[in-house]
């Protein structure tokens, strides 16, 4: 039953990324939380979503740019992480992160294929076909995107689940290295997002001021 719910969630997340309605259900922190909820552990889903989100902060969907699809990968990864029952440690999180980053690329290839399919669907509307033809073809393209999202999410979740069961469940990897690796990667990825706001040359004062305030909160709060 939860796999069916995941497929529906994947469809909605896939649609939200580009087609409809772009209210950011497709951001990793939301998609992963919802996928975690499907298998009864939204908090763990959110924890994974936060990690993946840091890696996608600097990716901008500008023009016809090709970029990894974060939402379906986040949903697949979070579902696999919870369903594999490998615990809430850093090692499963790290391996799921690696898997989700790769799966985001696979999902991006599926987006491209769906866009080519949309092109064929739209082209098939011959001139003079009338408004109903335009509407039907538009809805058909959205249906393709929905199905694509569902299939890519469920496939990703199944592969991620298998990976975690094989790699982590039997003999867990080194927990300290995994935790340290997550910290290093998160700090690097998050700081890299400064480029979105103009980079260090333009935003040095704001970034440094924020770092001072953040340090004070971390020390005294």
């Amino acid at each position: 039953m939860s796999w069916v719910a995941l497929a529906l969630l994947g469809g909605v997340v896939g649609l939200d990324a580009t087609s409809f309605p772009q209210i950011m259900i497709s951001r990793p922190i939301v998609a992963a939380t919802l996928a975690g909820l499907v298998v009864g552990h939204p908090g763990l889903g959110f924890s994974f979503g936060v990690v993946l989100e840091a890696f996608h902060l600097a990716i901008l969907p500008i023009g016809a740019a090709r970029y990894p699809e974060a939402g379906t990968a986040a949903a697949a990864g979070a579902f696999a992480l919870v369903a594999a029952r490998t615990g809430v440690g850093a090692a499963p999180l790290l391996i799921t992160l690696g898997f989700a980053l790769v799966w985001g690329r696979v999902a991006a290839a599926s987006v491209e294929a769906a866009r080519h399919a949309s092109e064929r669907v739209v082209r098939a509307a011959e001139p003079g076909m009338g408004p109903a033809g335009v509407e039907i073809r538009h809805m058909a393209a959205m249906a393709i995107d929905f199905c694509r999202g569902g299939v890519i999410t469920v496939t990703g979740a199944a592969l991620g689940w298998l990976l975690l069961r094989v790699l982590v469940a039997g003999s867990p990897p080194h927990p300290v290295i995994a935790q340290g690796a997550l910290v290093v990667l998160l700090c690097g990825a998050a700081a890299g997002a400064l480029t979105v706001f103009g980079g260090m040359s333009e935003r040095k004062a704001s970034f440094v001021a924020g770092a001072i305030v953040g340090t004070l909160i971390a020390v005294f709060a």
Partner: protein
Amino acid sequence: MTVNGLIRSRVFLRSFAIQGSWNYRTLIGNGFAFALLPVLRALHRGDPVGLGRAVERHREIFNSHPYLVGVALGAVARLEMERADPGIVTRFKAALRGPLGSLGDRLVWAGWRPLCLIACLVAYYAGVHWAWVGFLFLVVYNIGHLALRCWGFRIGFDHGHEVGERLRRSPLAATQKPVARAGAFALGMLVPLLLARTAAGLPWPWWAAAAAAALLGVRLGNAIRAPLAIALAAFIVATFLFRGSGNG
């Protein structure tokens, strides 16, 4: 011929799905015709040939930021209502494409969205419960999102072919710098909070490595993604190579 509020509402609602048939040939051209259809149907009632021609004109290549496409939809609805020459409408749409795309990209994708996300991550690492963080992100982000869509559609319909001038006088462009500054400030807050929360209990070399990674991230920007991917793969291998030594 007028277009009443109900028809305008239908166009506005359809604008949420304007990218539904996004493709490499006409971009959101088909979606534009799809969203404008309620207006075209009202204006060409009893004239299927005229309606078909109008639909074909609007299926041609078009692109815009999805949140600002309402500006174009509203303005084109007004022009169609005023029975403007089809050539003028086509040229008008072509003139709007670039500005609406670049303004939306800078304002939303490179401004409002990362600012909201980073602020939520700061809240999470500062100790706010995850459920509130996720909820607040969706609510706060979408207040800005919906406000922008509503405003864009309204000024498009109210100003018609003069909407470009109205856009130039809007405060949108002026908000980009403060949003970018706020985003950089929030990002500055995020890094030490993230480090303090996630590195607790780790030996100091990990703290030093994380600080070095942050400095490298600031310096390289988006180009840090490739080194991070390599580091991630190396770390995963290392966790397995040393699996026996860390599990008590």
